[in-house]
């Protein structure tokens, strides 16, 4: 039961946390910024609206938001939120989840190309490229996790009695992993310095430009899907930072929410202090995370605990 409540809390808080980033960025910019509930208002507004569809599009354009949000939801079902038992878990689920993200990417890219717009084509090409590199990091991290735990499921990594966390005996190399995962989070969720979610209608963006033609409830589903994806990746980092066995469920949940706040704050700070990299530089940035993960693997291979 507690897993379901935690899942509901996580889903409901995803838009709030996304607003935290905006707030931090506003603070650095010396602005007041939008209210913390802005994303809820936006979602409600979008759900109330109708939609405009381009004449070029087919059913794939409408299917894409459904797949995106479905994937984000399923992925959360496998996540041990605050160290609790996830709703589903099986040996090998991590591979399935990574491939699910692939499925959602497949349809996002197709929806972008479906509109026949040159801008969206540009965004899709970038999305396809950068995610290939990010996947390398993710699978390297999985290899490392397998080295430590001999298991292939999120619950085995981060559930009760978990062995993978910063302040376990295996801890130190995990600093590198956290950094690598942070870079992947920025990449996969299209944040600065890979992509800039704030720029609209420019040739510099990836995710925002791919969903340029979506409107109304479809757009709301896409936005919510993106927010859920971000909270999934951030939760992974949170799990790595802190093993949630503080005794009571309440303490675990509080710690989890606080750490999430910290991570989102960190993303906000990152976005405020660095500019988006040139597109040609981005692959190097992503491959840096691969190098970090690889190095951590080598360290753990040489000094198994």
């Amino acid at each position, binding site marked *: 039961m507690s897993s379901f409540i935690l899942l509901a809390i996580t889903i409901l808080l995803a838009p709030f946390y996304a607003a935290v980033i905006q707030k931090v960025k506003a603070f650095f910019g010396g602005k007041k910024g939008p209210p913390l509930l802005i994303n809820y208002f936006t979602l409600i507004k979008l759900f109330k609206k109708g939609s405009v569809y*381009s004449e*070029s599009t087919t059913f794939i354009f409408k299917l894409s938001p459904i797949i995106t949000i479905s994937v984000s939801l399923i992925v959360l079902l496998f996540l041990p939120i605050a160290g609790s038992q996830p709703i589903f878990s099986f040996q090998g689920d991590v591979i399935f989840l990574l491939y699910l993200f692939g499925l959602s990417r497949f349809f996002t890219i197709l929806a972008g190309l479906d509109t*026949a*717009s040159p801008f969206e084509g540009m965004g899709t*090409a970038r999305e396809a490229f950068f995610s290939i590199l990010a996947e390398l990091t993710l699978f390297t991290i999985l290899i490392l996790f397998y080295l430590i735990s001999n298991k292939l499921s999120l619950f085995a990594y981060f559930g009760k009695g978990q062995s993978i966390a910063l302040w376990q005996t295996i801890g130190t190399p995990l600093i590198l992993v956290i950094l690598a995962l942070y870079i992947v989070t920025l990449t996969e969720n299209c944040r600065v310095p890979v992509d800039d979610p704030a720029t609209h209608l420019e040739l510099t963006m990836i995710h925002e430009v791919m969903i340029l033609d979506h409107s109304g409830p479809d757009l709301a589903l896409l936005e919510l899907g993106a927010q859920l994806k971000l909270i999934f990746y951030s939760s992974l980092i949170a799990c790595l930072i802190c093993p949630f066995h503080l005794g009571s469920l309440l303490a675990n949940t509080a710690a989890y929410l606080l750490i999430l706040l910290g991570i989102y704050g960190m993303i906000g700070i990152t976005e405020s202090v660095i500019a988006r990299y040139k597109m040609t530089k981005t692959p190097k940035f992503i491959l840096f995370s691969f190098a970090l993960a690889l190095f951590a693997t080598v360290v753990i291979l040489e000094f198994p605990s």
Partner: protein
Amino acid sequence: MNELFLSLLLILIGGLLPLLLSRRFNAMKMFSILFICAGCILGLFPVAKGFFSGSKLTFEVDIYQYFSISLQMDGLSAFFLFPILLITILGAIYSFHYMNKPEKAFKTAVSYLFFSLLTISMVCVVLANNLFTFALAWEIMSLSSFFLVIYDYEKEIVRKAGYYYFVFTQVGALIIFASFGILFTFTGNLGFSSIHIIPENIKLLVFIMLFIGFGSKAGIFPVHFWLPHAHPAAPSHVSAIMSGIMIKMGIYGIIRFYILLGSSAIIIGQIVLAFGVITGIYGIVQALGQNNIKRLLAYSSVENIGIILIGLGTGMIGISLKQPLLAALGFSGALLHLLNHSIFKTLLFMGAGAVIQKTGIETIDQLGGLLKRMKVTGITFLIGSLAISGLPPFNGFVGEFLIYYAGFIGISFMEQSFIPSYFIILSLALIGGLALACFTRVIGIVFLGEPRTKNAEIAKEGGKSMLIPMAILSAACLFIGVLPGLFIRMAVTASKSIMVVPEDIMLSNVIKISSNITFAALLLFGVVALVFLLRTFAYKNKTITKSSTWGCGFTKPTPRMQYTGVSFAAMILDFFKPLAPAKIDHPVISGHFPKPTYYHSKITDIAETNVLKRVVKPILVVFDKLRWIQHGDIHLYIGYILFAIIILLLFI
């Protein structure tokens, strides 16, 4: 075995009949297809019976004193017979509406003859139980497929492709037969059963020779480059059969002789794995750069052969390390991926064939918007693309999942297999990502957006006999993806011919993996259905308007402004430049009144350019110098013969 012979006879009749009926085009096709299909369906029964009961069928007849035809069906051959027979049925049905040129009736009839010969010879290759039978069937297979490729021999490009294929297939066969010669010198007979007695170091030599020979058929880097020439040249159902099943005969050869050699040297597994990794990544990077849809699919076949080799290599390493679970997962993953690939690659080639038939265009960047005009083709092609990218809930995911699983298990035996495991997992991840980019590109440019040319605009749906096989194949993709249990078990049963599969641990693992995949697929369907309902609810009583695509304020967009396949792939190809160097011809725009300019780009195949430059050219130079031996003077030729006989008399 007799039932199987009857089925082969029916297939042969199906091939011979059109020669007599070529006056009546449709009747000819109809009868031929009927006989071929009936033969294949009839053949399925003994195959299924033999496979599931685990019994071996054998047949042997001596034709001369030394040569005997010997056939045997074990689990591995039966596993290969399923796709051969099933895909042939669908390919034959597809050909009914695809071969639609009554003015070329006799040519079509000949094509059906070779089609049936190809099927029969492939069946014989997997059944062959001695070196002689294998070599015979192998040659008939190569030659009949060669004649199928040059169907359109009036075109120069087709003749060139045929020439490429012919050279490759004969040089490959030469190396295979040479290794058969080595085997013969050590064993003294042509049987399969005594091969394992040869010394260990010779085994390695023989395996490497066979790997090159079979690799040239399967399309392993660097001897793969006949595929991108032959596939676009051949009719689409032939490319489907060749890519779907014929190139797998190379894989069959590798597995069969690996079993027969019985060597457990770890180097063999490492070689196979290394070539798998290189072939997989190279194939998909090249595929991404192709602009001809069938060339692209050919390179994607190269990639999938790479994945199959990765699985095989994992299995072989597992055997060397005496880790039955690792080995069984590797082999069954490879075999299952092979089965899956024969399904979705056939589907994709059929889709490409429909597109080419209806538009007359093979270039991706000249198509567009076909999903609206060719609904069934578009949707089945989409399913095939999802499957080939290895995405759940389709069948491509299942095979790759098994290989991933094997790779992760390999990590546990750290000293010997950490590095191989590392390569298995990361190369699969990289290939998966690139395949996704490659196939979103095909779907996005060919089937979505706006038509880029007149021909693409007026395209219509293909004939029924073309659509039905595609629908069946895409249903199979989904079925195996959701309920993989039976198919994983089949792959495990087939792996029993390769190794002793420990029943207990394997069974529990198979049940667990397949039920997990089924559960995951159903979960996906459930959530998607739920979200779909919610979305329908959210759109209740809403105003939906149609408008043109938002062009950022630009009001007169044209189809020419769409992103093209070349630009979509440009960034990725730039990153992988060493693997796929691009030849770009683009005069710089300069001056105040610049001249009109153009942009040509072509991805070159580094294997092709290097082999042509460093191997073929020197050989030609040497042989040019020896031309004087062949002077045309018959007296001297008789002299050669006399000379040869005298030399032989001295030595023997």
